[in-house]
C-alpha cells in the first residue's frame, strides 16, 4: 500500500488494491519506522465487506496502545514478547476460532495430536493443534509476568505517558538546525525517526551511544519506506514507559554534539 509524505497509508489507493485475487491483508498497526498509527479498524471493515481476512502486526501496538482485538474485529493479531518488556523468542498469535478451526496444523509433534493410528491422525483442540512439541516454557512464564506488569501499570496510562514524551521530543528536536523528522502522521505514537543534514544515521547512533543514549539507526527493516523518503535510513529514538522528559533533553543536547562533530 503506498504511503504519503507524512508517513500515512494512502487510503485512496487501498480500495483499488483489493481484487478477487486478494486472499488476506496483512498490515502493521503501529509503524516501527514512522510511528504512524494506521486506521486499521476502517481497513478491516472495508476488507470484511469484500470477505477478505486481515492479519494485524501488533508488535508495537500491543505494548504501547490499548488493543481490543474484538473491537478491531481483526481476524489475526500477532505480537512479540521482547517488545513488551518480556523475553525474546516468544510471542502471541491471536486468531478467530472459526478460522483457526478450519486451518490445518503447520507443524507436527507432541501435544498437537488427539489420536494417531497408522491410517490417520486427528488433531488436538485449539490451541494445542498449533503448539507442537516442547513449548518455550520459561519464556511463556516470563511473558506472562511481563503482561501482568504492563497491565498493572495500565496500557492507557503507558500510552498517555509516551504520547507526552513524543510531543515534548518532537517540539524539542524540531529546534535543532538541519534536523528533519521522518514520519509526521497525525495519529502517531512514541517513535521519533529523524535525519540530520550531512550526518549518516549510523554515526549519530555511535555518538549518542557514547553519551549513554541508545537509539536505533538504519532502515528499520523498512527499506521501501526509506526509498519513499529518498534516504538511506533514519536515526530513531523510541519511547518506553520508563523514559523521562530529562532524557529527551539529554538526547537533544547530544544531538548538538553530533552536529558539532560531524556536520
Amino acid at each position, binding site marked *: 500500500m503506498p504511503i504519503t509524505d507524512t508517513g500515512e497509508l494512502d487510503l485512496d489507493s487501498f480500495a483499488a488494491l483489493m481484487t478477487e485475487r486478494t486472499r488476506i491483508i496483512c498490515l502493521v498497526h503501529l509503524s516501527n519506522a514512522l510511528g504512524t498509527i494506521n486506521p486499521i479498524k476502517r481497513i478491516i471493515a472495508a476488507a470484511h465487506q469484500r470477505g477478505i481476512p486481515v492479519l494485524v502486526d501488533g508488535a508495537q501496538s500491543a505494548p504501547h496502545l490499548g488493543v481490543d482485538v474484538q473491537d478491531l474485529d481483526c481476524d489475526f493479531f500477532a505480537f512479540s514478547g521482547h517488545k513488551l518488556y518480556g523475553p525474546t523468542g516468544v510471542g502471541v498469535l491471536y486468531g478467530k476460532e472459526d478460522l483457526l478451526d478450519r486451518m490445518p496444523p503447520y507443524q507436527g509433534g507432541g501435544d498437537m495430536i488427539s489420536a494417531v493410528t497408522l491410517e490417520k491422525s486427528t488433531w488436538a483442540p485449539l490451541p494445542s493443534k498449533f503448539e507442537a512439541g516442547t513449548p518455550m516454557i520459561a519464556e511463556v512464564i516470563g511473558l506472562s509476568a511481563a503482561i501482568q506488569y504492563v497491565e498493572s501499570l495500565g496500557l492507557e496510562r503507558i500510552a498517555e505517558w509516551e504520547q507526552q514524551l513524543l510531543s515534548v521530543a518532537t517540539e524539542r528536536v524540531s529546534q535543532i538546525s538541519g534536523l528533519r523528522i521522518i514520519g509526521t502522521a497525525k495519529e502517531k505514537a512514541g517513535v521519533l525517526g529523524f535525519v540530520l543534514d*550531512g*550526518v*549518516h*544515521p*549510523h*554515526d549519530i547512533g*555511535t*555518538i549518542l551511544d*557514547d553519551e549513554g543514549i541508545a537509539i536505533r*539507526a*538504519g*532502515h528499520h527493516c523498512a*527499506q521501501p519506506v*526509506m526509498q519513499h523518503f529518498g534516504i*538511506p*535510513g533514519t536515526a530513531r529514538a523510541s519511547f518506553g514507559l520508563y523514559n523521562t522528559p530529562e532524557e529527551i533533553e539529554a538526547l537533544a543536547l547530544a544531538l548538538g554534539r553530533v552536529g558539532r*562533530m*560531524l556536520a
Partner: protein
Amino acid sequence: MATLDALYQDLILDHNRKPKNYRSMENANRRAEGNNPLCGDRLIVWLLMDGDTIEDISFEGSGCAISLASASLMTTAVAGKTRQDAEALFVKFHRLVTGSLPTSDGQELGKLVAFKGVSEYPARVKCASLAWHALKAAMEQPNAVVSTE
C-alpha cells in the same frame, strides 16, 4: 584520546566531508560493488589496472563517515601499487581495525592508522572494511559484488 574522538579523528572527518577520488571511471577495466544490506551502505569501486598495477582507482556510494572515509583513504593508499602490495596492505589494515596488529607494524599503513579507533567498535569494522573488500573483489574478477555482513 577518548574512544569516540579516536574513532572520529579529524583525518577521517575530513575525508568524509570531501572524499578523494569520488567519481565514476569511464575507462575502468575493473569494477566491484560493496553492499552492507543490514546498514544500507553501498559503494562502487572502479579500477584501471595495467597488468598487476593499479593505474587509477575511484569510488562512489553512500554510507556512514567511517565507510566513506575508509574508501577515500584506501584509494589514496593503493593508487600506483601492485595487486600484491594492495592485498598485503588490506591484510594489515584488517588487523588494525580488528585490534590484532602489533603497534610496531603500524608504520607501513601511513595515514590509514587513523582507523585504529575502529577496533574499539566491533560493529563498525564492516564499515571500515567494505571498500577494501570491494577492491579485493575487483582485482580478483572484473565485475563483482561483495558484502561484509
